[in-house]
């Protein structure tokens, strides 16, 4: 029997990077993404708190500054390695264990839609140890719960150093959970993500629920 379409891709996925930022996010993301090689082997999904009328402008601008392709995904789009997916304004973005995107218009979480927690938690439940979660600059505490969940399911967690973050509140709140594995500058985050992908062997596949 063929696997159901929602589950085709996920089992083969080596890992997944999820990122969250708010105020100051554009500059931070540009710096982190420019630290990644053009053949980066992992997909990157990110939530930036956006203005309701953004209509894809943020993703478009980020694409100009990034070595990797950047788009807002459609619902049920397959996640590809080396591609950056930006949650569309006014939708939560989740990931299915089969490696597809699921969007939702459920109520706001931490006054935000998209919410970082929603993305992080769905990634943690779908991909367990294969998730790397990154929290960067922002003035909200969205993402902290997500960091906890990623950590409790065996994933790896990174926070931008609050001492150098443009808006330190969000990474500080993540660090305060006690569930952050490493605290780095933006440059350090880019390097770390590149290194971890190179050593991707260290993400055993056994965590995938549907194998």
């Amino acid at each position, binding site marked *: 029997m063929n696997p159901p*379409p929602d589950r085709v891709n996920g089992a083969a996925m080596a890992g997944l990077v999820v990122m969250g930022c708010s105020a100051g996010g554009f500059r931070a993301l540009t710096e982190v993404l420019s630290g990644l090689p053009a053949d980066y082997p992992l997909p990157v999904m990110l939530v930036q708190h956006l203005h309701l009328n953004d209509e894809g402008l943020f993703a478009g601008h980020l694409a100009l500054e990034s070595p990797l392709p950047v788009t807002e995904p459609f619902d049920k789009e397959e996640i590809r390695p080396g591609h950056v997916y930006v949650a569309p304004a006014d939708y939560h973005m989740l990931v299915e264990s089969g490696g597809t995107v699921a969007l939702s218009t459920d*109520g706001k979480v931490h006054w935000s839609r998209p919410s970082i927690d929603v993305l992080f938690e769905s990634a943690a439940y779908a991909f*367990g140890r294969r998730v790397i979660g990154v929290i960067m600059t922002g003035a909200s505490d969205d993402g902290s719960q997500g960091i906890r969940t990623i950590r409790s399911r065996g994933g790896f967690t990174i926070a931008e150093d609050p001492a150098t973050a443009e808006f330190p509140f969000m990474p500080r709140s993540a660090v305060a959970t006690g569930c952050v594995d490493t605290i780095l500058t933006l440059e350090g985050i880019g390097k770390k993500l590149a290194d971890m992908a190179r050593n991707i062997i260290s993400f055993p596949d056994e965590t995938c629920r549907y194998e």
Partner: protein
Amino acid sequence: MTNTQDNVEAIEIDLLLEAVYRRYGYDFRSYSRASIERRIRHFLSTSGCGSISDLIPRVLYDDSFFSRLVRYFSIPVTEMFRDPQVFQILREKVIPVLRTWPHVKIWHAGCATGEEVYSLAILLREEGLYDRATIYATDFNDEALDQARAGIYPAERLKDATRNYQKSGGRRSFSEYYHAHYDAAAMEASLKERVVFSSHNLASDSVFGDMHLVFCRNVMIYFNRDLQNRALGLFTESLVHGGFLCLGTKETLKFSAVFRMFEEVDEKARIYKKTGGS
């Protein structure tokens, strides 16, 4: 978390959804797994139960507990003239074609609490099409449908609605369309004259015939691809040749079984025209 614990949770969720289906006939087994899991976990945290398994006997023996759960499964988030540019494009590209039909039948699937139905009714009225149109507004959430029928909304939400209405190419003063009483606003009664509200489940019920426009936005995002294909099959069958399908701004036919039956009319507004089949 170990692999076994993951599997156990997956089994618990399967069993819960199976119980709901066999006991009450509501089929959530083919919903987007990520979204439904999130809703189940959220419900669990407010339920006083310790695990997803503990929800199962409660659901089986207690109707009111099930009603509470199902409310979590069908959260009717909506607003008037959501994505104003979509309504503008409807005016420009779809209305002129609808005008060529003597009677216009519209299926508004997943209409939630009705805000979009009234938006559509206003648009048709302004374009002079309302009197020869029938809007079939359906949802499987009966509470939401009751609110849609009543057409009474908190007055403070009318502010956003007014802004959206103007951005959508609205030509009048939006206040003509409702009567405000203190903190509530009742939509003008004639806006529901041509609307038939009814309960319909896209996962189990059948088609409505001879539609010229099917409007189904942000409903199928909660389905997996199989169930999306089922719903899209219903829409395809319902539409007349040359009829239109309008999806949410982040939904596409690209991954669906009916892709070849449609032609894209507008990329941004996610409007398609049925060109294949009968």
